[in-house]
């Protein structure tokens, strides 16, 4: 079945042994749309995000990107090739950055484009400079990641993902590991991407950010999508009891 949406997840289910972490999830994201996934820890939101680029493959169901099925059932060798190919279109940003500590910022950004797209060193350097300018860190190009603050690391990680010119960006709690005063600089970069109409799926604990940037918010709990809608509805006037409970607890914890 070909899909019309840009990113489409159909009947997704996932279990780790006997533990079922995702049940029958359906989700479609249009090109340029920005979707936030919120929910308590253990709700399966990160697992769902990691299923999109096959880091945690689904047990059953389908994931599609621009009419191409990502989780195709193939013999191991072909599967490996297919996955390496489709992942180039899907940028991912992790909670703990996962920058390569033995490479400079430049090396982190240029590695994949050089190896996978065969571009010249000069072009790769220009690409790194372009992406670093975008995240405001051009002056750090020859530093090693250990010399950067958390916020700077995450901005470099975003630049690294963008250098592959992905069609969609996945953010897995990109600001959860940051000191509070460093969150804003990363949020700024994400907002800028939103203005450029990058398709984004964002797993987050930050309701304010989700409300201000996202077109749509999905609330997950217990491995299912409980409720979804535009932030104005889901945050101001949630329909489901579970959503209301979660938001109330969350707001109480953040003290506002």
């Amino acid at each position, binding site marked *: 079945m070909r899909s019309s949406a840009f990113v489409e997840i159909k009947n997704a289910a996932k279990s780790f042994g006997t533990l079922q972490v995702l049940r029958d999830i359906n989700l479609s994201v249009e090109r340029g749309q920005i979707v936030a996934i919120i929910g308590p820890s253990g709700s399966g939101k990160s697992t769902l995000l990691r299923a999109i680029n096959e880091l945690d493959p689904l047990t059953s169901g389908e994931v599609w990107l621009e009419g191409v099925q990502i989780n195709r059932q193939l013999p191991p060798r072909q599967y490996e090739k297919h996955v390496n190919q489709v992942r180039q279109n899907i940028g991912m940003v*992790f909670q703990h950055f996962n920058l390569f500590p*033995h490479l400079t910022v430049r090396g982190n950004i240029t590695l*994949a484009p050089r190896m996978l797209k065969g571009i010249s060193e000069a072009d790769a350097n220009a690409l790194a400079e372009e992406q670093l300018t975008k995240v405001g860190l051009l002056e750090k190009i020859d530093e090693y990641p250990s010399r950067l603050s958390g916020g700077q690391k995450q901005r470099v990680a975003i630049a690294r993902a963008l250098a592959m010119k992905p069609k969609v960006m996945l953010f897995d709690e990109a600001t959860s590991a940051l000191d509070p005063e460093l969150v804003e600089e990363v949020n700024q970069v994400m907002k800028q991407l939103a203005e450029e109409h990058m398709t984004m799926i964002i797993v987050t604990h930050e309701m304010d950010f989700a409300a201000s940037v996202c077109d749509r918010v999905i609330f997950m709990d217990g491995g299912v999508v409980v409720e979804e809608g535009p932030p104005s509805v889901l945050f101001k006037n949630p329909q489901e009891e579970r959503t209301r409970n979660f938001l109330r607890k969350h707001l109480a914890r953040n003290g506002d």
Partner: protein
Amino acid sequence: MGLDFSVVPGYFGVLLQGMAWTVAITLGAGILSFFGGIIFAVAALYAPWFIRLPMRLFAWLFMGTPLLLQLFLIYFGLIQIGIDLPAFVAGIIGLGLHFAVYNSELIQSSILAVDKGQYEGARTLGLSRGQTLRQIIIPQAVHAVIPPMGNNMIALLKDSALVSVIGVMELTLAAQQSISRTYRPFEFYIAAAFCYYIINLALEAGLRRLERRIAASR
């Protein structure tokens, strides 16, 4: 007959040549043990069982038998099946493989200790398993293993004296030959010990520089 170190300078050239051979063997075997160690480690962790199993046996043989015996086997034993290696080459292969097995054990645990996020970060960009291993995992594993591997290199330098038994004119054999001409064992063994110590100092200084350079990028 008292001690008389004045005979030593006359054999300076012999000792110096011995030193040069010792350095050459240590370097050759060191490089072989480094790359061999990486290859053995990757094979031990990722190769299919029909490669892994014989390699396990090979590793067990090299760790469980005397290095001296291994050198005899490579130099004298292999001739019988038509492989006639020069003593110098046999020495490098014997020492190199012996220490490659030890290095491999270090590198294996170091590969497994690399953060899983590194693997995910690379794979997410589209890098293949092999590319991730070569570009991301192994360089980090090797960085982490330089200090303990340095200890193996120093052990290798000292064990290089064993290749004297297959006739390589390295430092220990050079000292012995000088002794057989002068009958001054104490003086020449002390002189040889001093030479080993000098090489050791240089090796340690080199390793320290390497560690500092790696530390600078952390």
